[in-house]
């Protein structure tokens, strides 16, 4: 009976369902959105097509700069010739497998620790081991690897190093500062407030500048830490102040009742903070925290003013090579893609992490 009824039902008109229906509903819902659709199509035609033509159809993938100059499209052979310098900087050419290996290990480790199910003390030790291995492989001087000083580290390696070490050290430091700011002891509170406001009151570029130009003048000759370490410390101190403020936001969002309840079941201050308050607070602030991580990664490009060769700077340096002058677009597109890859994956991951850690919200564990 129900079958025959279904047979006699009129099907909805073809313009209401399927892809046609979707187009009609979403792109031409009323005259205004119809107009916008046409405007967008026109823009895509005007911008997208030439971009495609430039980047793919007319592009050059091999040959020298002179071959490229004759062509109208992108010159990707510029990237092919220079990518090793852009990625690894001054790291000795024959030894560049070492930073490549380190980046591979690091990215692999990220994949392993992607899922919170695997988070454990063991994984933490795993990371410590990985950091030691990376340090040894990069620096050498052990196990038959030649010693390579950090003044030749550059390119993507340096960008990742500054960002990862910066974030890893700044995060706990930021949490401590945020807790310190909430402290009942006036001295600690004052110190933390002063630190946070002082650092947030100056731009990163001035911190880097002070670390690189002024610090050596104050310290006695020979006691100056090397340039990379100075920049790294400046980045850590800077990011920590911002993370502290983000975490403070999370701490303040925790209802008073949680504190009282923790006290009522007899938890000490440390336990209360560690088991009840921080887990909730840190979860709430995942999105702004990741924003700070992303901006830390991008801010590392400011080290150009103290003449460290990060990803952007190595790309710029290849541009001044007389053999390859005039291919700035290709270089910047290449670098932008790399930055985008890292920043976008961080952003996506934060969304995922949020939903995994909040079963009460989405239920999509």
């Amino acid at each position: 009976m129900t079958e025959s009824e279904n047979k006699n039902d009129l099907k909805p008109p073809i313009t209401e369902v399927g892809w046609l229906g979707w187009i009609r509903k979403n792109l031409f819902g009323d005259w205004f959105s119809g107009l916008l659709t046409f405007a967008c199509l026109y823009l895509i035609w005007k911008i997208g097509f030439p971009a495609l033509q430039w980047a793919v159809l007319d592009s050059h993938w091999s040959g020298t700069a002179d071959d490229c100059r004759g062509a109208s499209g992108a010159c990707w052979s510029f990237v092919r010739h220079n990518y090793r310098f852009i990625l690894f900087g001054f790291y000795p050419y024959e030894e560049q497998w070492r930073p490549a290996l380190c980046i591979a290990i690091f990215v692999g480790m990220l994949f392993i620790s992607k899922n919170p199910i695997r988070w454990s003390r063991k994984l933490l030790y795993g990371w410590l081991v990985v950091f030691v291995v990376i340090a040894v492989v990069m620096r050498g001087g052990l196990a038959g690897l030649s010693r390579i000083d950090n003044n030749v580290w550059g390119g993507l390696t340096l960008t990742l190093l500054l960002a990862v070490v910066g974030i890893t050290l700044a995060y706990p430091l930021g949490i401590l500062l945020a807790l310190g700011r909430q402290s009942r002891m006036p001295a600690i509170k004052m110190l933390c407030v002063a630190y946070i406001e002082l650092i947030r009151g100056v731009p990163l570029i001035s911190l880097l500048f002070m670390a690189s130009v002024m610090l050596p003048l104050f310290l006695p000759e020979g006691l100056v830490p090397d340039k990379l370490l100075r920049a790294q410390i400046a980045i850590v101190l800077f990011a920590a102040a911002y993370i502290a403020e983000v975490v403070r936001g999370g701490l303040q969002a925790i209802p008073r009742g949680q504190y009282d309840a923790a006290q009522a079941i007899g938890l000490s201050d440390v336990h209360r903070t560690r088991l009840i308050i921080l887990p909730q607070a840190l979860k709430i602030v995942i999105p702004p925290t990741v924003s700070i991580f992303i901006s830390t990664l991008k801010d590392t490009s400011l080290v150009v003013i103290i003449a460290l060769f990060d990803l952007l700077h190595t790309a710029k340096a290849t541009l001044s090579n007389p053999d390859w002058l005039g291919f700035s677009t290709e270089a910047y597109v290449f670098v932008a893609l790399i930055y985008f890859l890292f920043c976008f994956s961080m952003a996506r991951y934060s969304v995922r992490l949020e939903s995994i850690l909040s079963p009460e919200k989405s239920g999509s564990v």
Partner: protein
Amino acid sequence: MKIYISPNIQLKYLLTLLINSILVISFTSSESYAGKTLEAVKSRGHLRCGVNTGLPGFAMADPRGIWRGLDADLCRAIAVATLGDSSKVKFIPLSAQQRFTALQSAEVDVLVRNTTITLQRDAAMGMNFGPVNYYDGQGFIVHKDLKVKSALELDGATICVSPGTTTEANLADYFRGKGMTYQSVVIESTDELTQAFFAGRCDCYTADASALAAARARVKFPHDYHILPEIISKEPLAPAVRHGDDQWLDIVSWTVWAMQLAEEYDINRKNIDSMLESMNPNVQRLLGVKGNFGEILGLDNKWAYNIVKQLGNYGESFERNLGNKTKLKLSRGLNQVWSRGGILYAPPLR
């Protein structure tokens, strides 16, 4: 039962730990700077040389990350003179603001970063300059279609210039001095500035002559552009060292001069071994066959021989980095030994 410390005490402890560890790291991570520069370089086993972060022809990384350029070669030459090996040099790229601090704080042993000698730098900034390694000066480049043969014909021209530099000030001085007018097009980034010029936004582009040559090298038809003969400023570029170590200044100076003298006496990389038998006393002294001039400087007696053997004379370095075989195609001009019409006049080595 465990005893828990209050979070505040823990925090204090952690902060102290942090501060201490930063101090410890900073005290242990850098090498100690012991007395005289030469001894420091020898005991360290390499020279620390401050260079530009990327200036074609002077100091620039090639795609393999190896430093190329006239300045880079001078760094290597000093390494050869002091340590006998051109690879024993650590290049430390420095920005314009960083360079003097880096020298004063002993982060570098010598600064070879296309630095113009000025009175203020020489006297007030605690540094001493060696002999000039390259005479640069501000010039003009125009399109050939403009049919301009001299800067004096540029009255009323639009000129591309980068803002806030001595270049801009020199330009204003020059035109005011000649009673001419001009319209300036001011763009911050060098890359965009040169693109604006080659796209025809200005009649003329002004910068240091070596930079003009570098800009010209990038266009499709470099022969369409013409660098005018007038040079309107003096930019003598020289290596610099810290005040207070005269022996080190002597070594840097004589390294520059040795390369120039080698060219003057026609000693180059190819013929140097046969030159050891030369009867010319000047050559004999330079190559350490006669006399103990290296030892007087505190170096190996074969110091100059090693420099030319490994790097060539000044002319070879010039041709390799700036000359006609490179994209820059700079002519020798003033940077030619005095006996061939230039102003490189190295004092006698005796």
